[in-house]
């Protein structure tokens, strides 16, 4: 899966007599995919994740009730045929609320992670590739930022500027990019010393070509793995803030917020705690197992045997 260049892509119309019987090589990506497919937990995680995403995307069309629809007469009721997961104290359908909450939780996870991914990869690649003083300065900055107590800062931000969801995305993303930058930088730095980069330089390839064709495809593995593992930690963080009442603001909802409501009434209506908890944990499990599976599958040491 080398980043395709028009002038290098193997075109089938190019086949010559004598080259028709070429054996199809098995790229590292394909090998990794084969290994991943054998890992049942990881495949299960991937499946659950896709299911969650599809449900979140289709929520407005598939949710059985409207989000705010109250039924004060019914009040909090356990799971039934009408309300599969029961209702909350205001008689609102829990399944509907979980679906809408999932949209927010997943969105925070994915958006904040992509913020982190973009900043981290660019920063790390730059520092690692240029090395020397540039690298030292850039990584010193990361070290300093690392030492800052971000969790507390984000709480501070939320208190001061109000519970703004956009701010939440940015704030979490701005914290998580640090580790991504470190990972990418370390990877680029070790690749930079590899002889195939030297070979590319001595071939006269431009820096941009080297970065694009030789560096980035080889850093992709760890980046994918870490991205998969960042999403759950971001979702956890959002849930944590929402639980404390400092994250998502009603009437919007997220799994963390639903859990915190559930805790208040868990003695009488335990399902209000258990179902949101189950939704969050299942997603976290899925992402973590997928991340672990990807790590095992993409580990270069494993691919040599």
């Amino acid at each position, binding site marked *: 899966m080398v980043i395709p260049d028009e002038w290098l892509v193997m075109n089938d119309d190019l086949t010559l007599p004598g080259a028709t019987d070429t054996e199809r090589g098995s790229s*590292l*990506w394909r090998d990794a995919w084969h290994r991943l497919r054998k890992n049942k937990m990881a495949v299960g995680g991937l499946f659950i994740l896709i299911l969650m995403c599809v449900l979140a995307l289709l929520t407005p069309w598939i949710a059985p009730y409207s989000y705010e629809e109250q039924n004060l007469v019914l009040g909090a009721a356990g799971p039934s045929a009408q309300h599969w997961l029961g209702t909350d104290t205001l008689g609102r359908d829990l399944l509907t609320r979980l679906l809408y909450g999932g949209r927010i939780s997943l969105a925070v996870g994915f958006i904040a992670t992509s913020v982190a991914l973009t900043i981290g990869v660019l920063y790390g690649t730059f520092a690692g590739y240029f090395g020397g003083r540039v690298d030292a300065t850039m990584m010193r900055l990361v070290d300093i930022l690392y030492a800052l107590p971000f969790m507390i800062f984000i709480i501070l931000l939320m208190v001061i500027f109000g519970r703004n969801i956009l701010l939440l995305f940015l704030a979490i993303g701005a914290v998580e990019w640090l580790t991504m930058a470190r990972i990418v930088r370390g990877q680029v730095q070790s690749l930079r010393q590899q002889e195939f980069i030297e070979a590319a330089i001595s*071939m006269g390839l431009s820096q941009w070509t080297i970065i694009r064709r030789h560096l980035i495809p080889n850093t992709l593995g760890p980046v994918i793995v870490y991205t998969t593992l960042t999403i759950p930690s971001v979702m956890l963080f959002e849930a944590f803030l929402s639980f404390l009442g400092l994250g998502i603001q009603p009437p919007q909802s997220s799994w963390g917020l639903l859990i915190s409501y559930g805790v208040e009434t868990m003695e009488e209506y335990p399902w209000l705690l258990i179902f949101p908890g189950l939704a969050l944990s299942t997603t976290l499990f899925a992402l973590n197992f997928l991340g672990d599976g990807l790590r095992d599958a993409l580990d270069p040491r494993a691919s040599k045997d």
Partner: protein
Amino acid sequence: MALLEVDNLSIWFHTRNGVVKAIDSVSFSVAEGETLAIVGESGSGKSVCCYSLLGLIPSPPGNIESGTAIFDGRDLLTLSERELRKVRGSKIATIFQDPMTSLNPYLTIGEQLIEPLLYHRAMSRKDARGRAIQLLDEVGIPGAKQRFDSYAHEFSGGMRQRVMIAMALIAEPRLLIADEPTTALDVTIQAQTLQLIADLQKQRNLAVIFISHDLAVVAGIADRVAVMKDGQFVEYGPTEAVFDRAQHPYTQSLLAAIPGGAKPGSPATSSSSPDSPLIEISHLKTWFNGTEETTSNATVKAVDDVSLSITKNEILGIVGESGSGKSTLGRSILQLVKTTSGSIKFDGEELCGLTPHQLIPYRRRIQMIFQDPYASLNPRMTVFDALAEPLRYHGLATRKTVLPQVLNLMDDVGLAASAMRKYPHEFSGGQRQRIAIGRAIATKPEFIVADEPVSALDVTIQAQILELILRLVEKHNLTMLFISHDLSVVRYICDRVAVMHGGELIESGATETLWHHPQTPYAQSLLAAVPRLSSRSS
């Protein structure tokens, strides 16, 4: 009566992809005071064979299927883990290949040295310390008393291996298994280490099993030799017999593959060609400033005031030990490292100080072959991609012509056209080096820097790649700088040789002249240390 008598040993590895017969019905014996050498290429099973005696192979997947190994009257293969532990380090000791990774970086060498005494001989720490210092002294570590509390990284490679030897011998074992003990060492250090092992063996009447890939090393020290291939002994007998009257074709091919003698088809002295030099280096200095990674901030003078020239169609060898600056010299010519001062002229034009952009036309004309063919190929590019890239980038092929040109290159370096869409990890080491060589000659360069191109390869493969290089140099009128630590290889392939030591070029001359009449003491010691087949004593 032999000290160790192994009979009909078979070890199979039960992997997911089936059963691998790592050791297949192997029998041998070693007596006290005797050295048995087991020789084989990588993957032949030579190490597994010895580790299995000590219960050091991972099991599963490894399983001893049959055989006996009678050591001192007891069958090692039937001993319990607990009984085996009493044999390991106490009666049978081991030295490993890489002393850097084989010593614990978190413990002082003294602490590691005394362990066998503490656990096998129940000695007090104080007595053990005294004994350890005495032995460190014996293996030639200066200031043994002070170095007792040092860590492994504070020693040089040769000294570390001496520490390993002391550690192996401290509990007075009767059998020493030496697994490629000198492979990671420079040639002069190798000679010293071999001598040390031989001396210690004589004093202690030790039995030694010496595992090696290098027949030349073995020739000088072994009493008996076993040649191993695919888990079997294809040849086993007294050293004389194996070297002089090898029966098995594999042994014969191994012997034939050892680069011996002068460059084929060339006169003993290089004909002084009237050609102007293609490369002219004068007063080149490449210094590195201490970075954060090195311990000191001192400047490293990797290349220090080197002047040399290479004429067209010549292969110039650069020999030197690790840290001599030979690789840096090669990388300086390619402008892969920043030179400090001096000049490098290629075809009359100055390379030093050019911008990356100005260098591009020269990049086509100067190429490089690297030591590790796996590391020098992008693992995510197919052979086609790797070979097409330089062609397309330098505009040497069009969309239409790139495929036949790549196929042509693959044919040139001896790769099957059908392998075009495969990835580097699907090839063997030798084939990978062929891909790398193909990439280097793709742009039809005039000059190639080859940095230890065969030192990561098995000896039979090495011979094939050397042949390939010679053929290509001939065919494409190449000029080459051939960097190597292996003097036999250099002698076999180079017209002229230059010796580097501590960043300086201390001697150069026509290969055969230098081989037979080295002038400087360093070159003399270097040549004296080269293990040769002919040097074996009766």
